[in-house]
């Protein structure tokens, strides 16, 4: 589903964020990216979402070589990937419902169908009763769940999350991670970047530990295959 082949990424005037990274994440797999800050976790996710492009090497997502996705095709490409962010990136001038509906509006899905799907997604994250509220009236954990509902509402094949529990306390973090597990159980490929080693270990999913832009096999992770 996601394949990195000898990927290098160097930001202009900066260090090498990824250095000869090769790995393969299978379809339907749930994996965690761990490592210190600056190890290249976010860069990896950005390459998957085509927010950045590799300096060298190839990133193949869903059988598609990202190098061949032109700028104009990026929106269509991104619609097949759900993204969850540490700071949720919700729009505060709209209701929870409208936030979650945004990917469906973008994809041109009709109102009735969109309404049905939004309510289903909100139901999945347990926020069905709060669809008319603006996000600011929700707790941080709830806001993150809105973010997750928005990421899954268009039923993407891949869900990527960058430190989704970065701002949450341990209990809420576990709750959020369990939410991801449930989506994984229905076949969504999930990649989560997290620096919370203890939480990741507790969940027992595959762990990809990055160290200075390389895959660290010694960290006891079930690393590159």
């Amino acid at each position: 589903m996601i394949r990195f082949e000898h990927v290098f990424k160097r930001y202009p005037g900066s260090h090498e964020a990824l250095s000869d990274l090769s790995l393969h994440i299978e379809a339907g797999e749930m994996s965690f990216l761990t490592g210190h800050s600056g190890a290249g976790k976010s860069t990896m996710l950005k390459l998957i979402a085509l927010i950045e492009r590799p300096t060298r090497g190839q990133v193949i997502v869903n059988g598609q070589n990202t190098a061949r996705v032109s700028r104009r095709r990026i929106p269509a490409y991104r619609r097949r990937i759900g993204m969850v962010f540490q700071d949720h990136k919700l729009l505060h001038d709209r209701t929870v419902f409208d936030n979650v509906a945004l990917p469906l509006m973008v994809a041109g899905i009709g109102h009735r169908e969109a309404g049905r799907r939004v309510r289903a997604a909100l139901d999945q994250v347990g926020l069905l009763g709060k669809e008319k509220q603006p996000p600011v009236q929700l707790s941080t954990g709830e806001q993150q769940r809105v973010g997750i509902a928005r990421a899954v509402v268009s039923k993407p094949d891949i869900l990527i999350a960058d430190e989704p529990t970065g701002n949450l306390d341990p209990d809420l973090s576990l709750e959020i991670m369990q939410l991801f597990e449930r989506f994984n159980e229905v076949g969504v490929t999930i990649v989560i970047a997290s620096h919370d080693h203890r939480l990741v270990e507790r969940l027992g999913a595959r762990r990809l530990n990055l160290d200075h832009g390389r895959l660290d096999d010694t960290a006891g992770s079930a690393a590159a295959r």
Partner: protein
Amino acid sequence: MARRRKKPERNRRPAEIRRSKSPGEKRRNPVSAYLLRHLQNFLGTLGRLCRHPVSSFLTISVIGIALALPAALHVIVENGRAVVGGWESVADLSVYLDKKATADQADEVAGDLAARDDVLSVEVIYADEALAQFRELSGFGDAIEGLSDNPLPHLVIVRPPPDLAPERIEALGTEIGARPDVDVVQMDTEWVSRFQGLLDIVRRGVTLAALVLAIGVIIIVGNTIRLDIENRRDEIEVSKLIGASDVFIRRPFLYSGFWYGLGGGAIALVLVFGGLWLLAGPVQRVAALYGSEFRLSGLDSRAVVVVLGGGAALGWLGSWFASTRHLRQIEPGHDL
């Protein structure tokens, strides 16, 4: 362990939802969905402008003033034309027939001239009429009574088409003057040249002003949209992240530009008609002093459509320039 217990029950829903993805996925008819999206933007952007009434009104007023200037110039030129009594009379040729010519001959000359391509219309003023009019207007009635016969010749007034070049008017005059039954042709081609030159300057001036102010409107709208884009940077970034195309993101800004332009056009009309309303009374009084029936004319329906449509088109254009340029520069991910 609580987690495991809950699982089967919660699990059902995602499976159900994912199933609906496959064959029977319901989508609205693409054309009506497309129109619906446009309608949503059409009304949505209007609603957004109404939620910020003060700033929207300021922007629209500036556009309105810019559009009102060429519209007002147009009104001034049109009314000036009416005051002068039409540009056409300026180029008229006065053809004085030979003293010996009869009224029938005058009709014949007029008929010949009216048939020409370079003559728009002719009017015959018979000698008797002319004398009667002169007697009435000049105040020399008694002196004229003393005349044994009419000293005035028959007169044919020849009006060439308004766009006829001064050289051709001159040629026309020379040709008419060569006729045996014509005594003198009076024309003022120099004045015609000057007048047409002046008219040309005024017309070009109006066009130039309209052009400059149109560019001004594009810049005003463009700048407003640029600020709007800056203010909604987060929203644009998020939209790009979830796969919104440039066209999708640009659409509401284009409609905002449209509303700004249309609103500006409406303000321009209010300004012009308001100005006309204020001036109508005094103008009529002055006209009455000159014994004239003159009334200020406003913008006709065609001009109203041009002001509104032109404003909307310029707003759209300004927004198109700004959004195409600035939306490209917003790329998500620097703070992911």
